[in-house]
């Protein structure tokens, strides 16, 4: 995998909205390896969503270069890029175009001028992949938020993109819906060899990613594996972010005078092990 060129590379990207003085994205450079799961975190208004929209050409860059799936993001290439990069947005209600589930999944295929017989099989497959086959004829009003989000994912899957960007796609779901959508994405990633970019507030979700990118006020402040990033617990809190549960527990324990734990990031299992170790030596 190391020889493969990164699927997304961004070089000094700057985006400035007309009504704002400060740029939404300020000279961001990063690369995202193919077939990885990358989480982008940052507080509200830090520019995470703008980054996704810039990749998809929904906002225009004021400076810098971007390459997505081997294509430079330019006016001529943008429709090809949109075929390779699928975006699932935050509010499931606002991205439901079709009158029924099946119509919505077919929407992107209609745009890509896929002939109808092929469309039928691709819609069926996509719905089966997200477990929504029984809901094909339902109208959006009769679906829950999590189900609508699954339909949105199916709509993207039907187009078979190389990259799927989840722009806070789980933020409006209940914990159960969130867990099941993420599990669906994980299964799909393994099966279809996708690259997944997820913009999120949910640090447990970020902790499960291969890479984490931290954006603060339009600037890239950190990038690395989850243990590397979360080891900087207090710095994250200063940026207005929270830390995963284990980091929170560690700092609470430190406040209570229990300081024997390692400074590295620990996941829940490692944390339990360390606590056992600490307890048995005492």
């Amino acid at each position: 995998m190391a020889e493969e060129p990164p699927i997304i590379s961004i070089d000094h990207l700057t985006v400035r909205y007309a009504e704002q003085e400060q740029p939404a994205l300020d000279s961001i450079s990063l690369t995202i390896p193919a077939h990885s799961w990358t989480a982008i975190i940052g507080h509200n208004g830090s520019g995470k969503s703008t980054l996704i929209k810039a990749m998809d050409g929904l906002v225009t860059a004021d400076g810098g270069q971007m390459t997505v799936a081997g294509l430079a993001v330019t006016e001529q290439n943008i429709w090809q890029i949109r075929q390779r990069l699928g975006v699932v947005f935050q509010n499931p209600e606002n991205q439901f175009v079709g009158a029924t589930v099946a119509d919505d999944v077919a929407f992107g295929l209609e745009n890509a001028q896929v002939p109808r017989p092929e469309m039928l099989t691709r819609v069926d497959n996509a719905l089966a992949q997200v477990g929504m086959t029984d809901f094909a004829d339902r109208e959006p009003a009769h679906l829950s938020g999590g189900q609508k989000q699954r339909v949105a994912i199916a709509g993207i899957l039907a187009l078979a993109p190389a990259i799927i960007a989840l722009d806070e796609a789980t933020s409006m779901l209940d914990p159960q819906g969130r867990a099941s959508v993420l599990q669906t994405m994980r299964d799909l990633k393994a099966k279809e060899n996708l690259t997944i970019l997820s913009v999120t507030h949910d640090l447990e979700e970020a902790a499960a990613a291969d890479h984490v990118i931290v954006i603060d006020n339009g600037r890239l402040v950190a990038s690395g594996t989850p243990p590397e990033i979360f080891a900087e617990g207090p710095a994250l809190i200063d940026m207005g972010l929270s830390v995963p549960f284990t980091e929170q527990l560690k700092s609470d324990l430190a406040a209570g005078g229990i300081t024997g734990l390692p400074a590295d990031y620990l996941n829940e299992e490692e944390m339990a092990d360390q606590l056992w170790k600490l307890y048995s030596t005492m």
Partner: protein
Amino acid sequence: MNKLMIGRYLPGHSVVHQMDPRGKMVLTFYFICIVFMANNIWSYLVLGLFTLGAVLLTRLKLIYFWRGIQPAIILILFTVLIQVFFTRGGQIYWQWGPFALSSAGVVNAWFIFFRLVIIICMSTLLTLTTSPLDISSALSSLMTPLKWIRVPVDIIALMLSIALRFVPTLMDETVRIMNAQRARGVDFGSGSLLQQIKAIVPILIPLFVSAMHHAEDLDDAMTARGYRTDAPRTTYRIIQWHRRDTLSIIAFAALTVVILFVRA
């Protein structure tokens, strides 16, 4: 709200439900035109029986059709009374100033009554048995010839289907905003007319703003999925013409012949 049958759709599997929505719409329109050709008791009898037959074919409870007529009942009675008292002709039973009760008036009133009831029944039948989705695809299909005069039929059809899809969403939102405003002490449906109009503002503005948000997000989502207004698209949803649709056209043709034969 629940009792209002105008535009309601009741799912079912009857022959009428399965008909091609284009055929159904055109035939309903055609039927309303035919109703105006009827001018004696026999022609009304034929139309009435035909309507009854169609209603029975839907296998829906008759109460739904009655509910369709209900909101129009005052209008029907008003029209009937005007016919009764202002039509002169034939034998005059009673007269007072401009008012008169004549045999022609009574006959005309009956005709108007039947005409309105038949028309309402048939249009209720169309909406009860055709889903809004089918109506919008039928409309876009029927508008296809307008492409020749450069009407953007596909865009209108997409707009129509998005509008229909957002009706329940915006309805829910209206209720939510109303409840939120109620919780803050806005009083709906009481006070003078001016006060009632003023109470609508705190619903209307948030609803308008949120509709704009919906539109912006939907625009992004549609663009991200490759929608271009100027590019050709294929279609997923198709409507098919069956033998039952041809049969229904034959039935309507037969009805026309019978009406032409029996009308005075």
